[in-house]
């Protein structure tokens, strides 16, 4: 019994033995010790303070090694409880209970996440005691940034800019609807982010996830008690209301039935991404839903607002953007796979093996770049857009990161960050390619085909 705790304790330089004295104060003494793992006991050498045999003691070995000025490392400690008995000159403890923490096994951030429920319960009890709310606080700006996951809005801005650029190259550009398109797209995206948190809290997926990173596991504002579930629900609804109002305004003013269809499709995908009854992400359809929503829907939507018609070019331009945004979700789901599986969320990393998921990334990223190359060579998109291929080294770096850190959520974070950059870089390079083509078109009446 308690083999692991005994083995862990054996690695410490000394122990502190403590017990509760007759006056109610704990009594402590450092002590030399030896662990007899075969017999499952701790032998404690004679101490200057007489150790008791008539009450329970706590024996603790701590290895919290300070790094002066910079915090602590190699943090681990082990505690055993039981009653001592004398054996010759020594005291012997056969542990009845054990507890400990080793940051190598449970990283500090995971340990903290596992304690969220305790923190909320403690603050709730304090609130009841005081008759006033006790909540953690952050500045409103940070709370808003976290709750909405605002930095991820690049996922919307990139496809909308590409859609506007495609239309611009065809001679259609109206700035006011363009601005409204960006605001409306951002509102749908915020609605999706916040609704995702709401439904993941309701299903228990986020609570179950003890390895969240800044890219996965939701915003954590509900689990950390920063924003209530109800308030998050209201934010999601308000965001969708803004998006729908802007969408309807654009549909009416641009007189576009296509835009109405695209807009309705976008909102439905966004809502039913995690919302019942469809819960697309729970059925392994999250990547496809995100690809469609943040690929063709956004690019075609932005294009139609400007051009008031549908053509093939924006759809082709949206394909690499769609693949790369889906890959953001795909990679972000890797560290979440255990918690997702436990609540029945059948994402692709839950369904497939490490090898398949890793190869899947390479195949999908290759498909994105191949689409750009072929479309540019064939002249479906302007040739300068081929500069998007400059993102290939970044994609390879993400692939290597996945291979290396597949099972290490915190080490994978840098790779997840690069993967977000990959979508942004490739998207902005494509946008730049379009701007270059527009500039060349404007400068030269008969620009060579090779340049546009």
């Amino acid at each position: 019994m308690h083999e692991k705790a005994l083995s862990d304790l054996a690695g410490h330089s000394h122990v502190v033995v403590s017990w509760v004295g007759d006056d109610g104060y704990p009594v402590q003494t450092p002590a030399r010790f030896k662990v007899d793992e075969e017999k499952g006991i701790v032998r404690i050498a004679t101490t200057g303070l007489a150790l008791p045999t008539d009450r329970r003691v706590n024996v603790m070995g701590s290895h919290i090694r300070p790094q002066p000025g910079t915090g602590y490392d190699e943090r681990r400690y082990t505690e055993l409880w039981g009653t001592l008995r004398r054996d010759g000159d020594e005291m012997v403890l056969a542990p009845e209970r054990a507890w400990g923490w080793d940051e190598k096994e449970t990283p500090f951030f995971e340990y903290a996440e596992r304690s969220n429920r305790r923190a909320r319960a403690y603050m709730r009890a304090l609130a009841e005691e005081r008759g006033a709310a006790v909540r953690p606080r952050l500045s409103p700006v940070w709370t808003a940034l976290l709750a909405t996951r605002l930095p991820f809005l690049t996922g919307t801005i990139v496809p909308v800019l590409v859609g506007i650029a495609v239309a611009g190259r065809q001679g259609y550009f109206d700035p006011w609807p363009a601005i409204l398109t960006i605001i409306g797209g951002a509102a749908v995206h915020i609605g999706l982010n916040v609704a995702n948190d709401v439904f993941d809290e309701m299903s228990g997926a986020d609570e179950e996830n003890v390895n969240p990173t800044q890219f996965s596991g939701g915003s954590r504002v509900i689990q950390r008690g920063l924003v209530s579930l109800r308030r998050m629900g209201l934010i999601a609804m308000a965001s969708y209301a803004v998006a729908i109002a802007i969408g309807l305004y654009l549909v009416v003013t641009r007189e576009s039935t296509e835009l109405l269809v695209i807009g309705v499709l976008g909102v439905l995908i966004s809502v039913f991404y995690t919302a019942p009854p469809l819960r697309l992400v729970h059925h392994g359809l999250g990547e496809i839903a995100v690809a469609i929503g943040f690929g063709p829907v956004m690019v075609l939507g932005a294009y139609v607002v400007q051009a008031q018609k549908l053509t093939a070019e924006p759809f082709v331009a949206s394909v690499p953007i769609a693949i790369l945004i889906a890959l953001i979700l795909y990679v972000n789901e890797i560290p979440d796979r255990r918690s997702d599986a436990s609540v029945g969320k059948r994402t692709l990393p839950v369904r497939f093996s490490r090898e398949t998921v890793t190869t899947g990334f390479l195949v999908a990223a290759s498909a994105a770049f191949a689409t750009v190359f072929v479309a540019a060579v064939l002249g479906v998109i302007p040739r300068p857009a081929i500069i998007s291929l400059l993102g290939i080294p970044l994609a390879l770096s993400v692939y290597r990161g996945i291979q290396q850190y597949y099972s290490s959520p915190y080490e994978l974070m840098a790779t997840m960050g690069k993967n977000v950059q990959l979508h942004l870089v490739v998207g902005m390079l494509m946008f730049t390619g379009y701007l270059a083509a527009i500039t060349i078109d404007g400068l030269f009446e008969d620009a060579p085909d090779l340049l546009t």
Partner: protein
Amino acid sequence: MSWIPPSVQRLLESALVAELTVVNSRGEPVTHPLIPLWDGETIYMTSAVLFSKKLEHIKRHPRVAVSISDPVASGGLTARCSIQGDAVVVEEDLHDAWTEVMPLWRKKEPAIDFFLGTRFALPLFFERSVIRITPRRVTWWEDGDPAKEPRVAVAEEARHA
């Protein structure tokens, strides 16, 4: 002048880790490694609400003990000690009140300012209670050898209690 022996004061001033023993609801001792802060009269420790079980134990049973036993965490000082005392949990404002002990904390762990600057990443870690411990009785081993009988010093008030 403090009744705390000079070698114990030195330990309190330099130790980066101490062991706080509290008594749980079953009457058993439970020990937690924490950073001890010392202003010459009172020992301060802080605890995030994430790890608040010890706070509940202290509120129920305020008699606690703090040991400093690891020479590596005490700047190489070889003495060891255990200080029994009465603890009070100060938590009127979990968000800010604990920052009153920041000057003492900063002296021992300058990196705390950096960590505090990233509180948005782990907000509940920075919602903290202060554990204020008034020493009553000190047991210490001048040369750090636990096999020897320790010396004992008692606070004036404790002597008359």
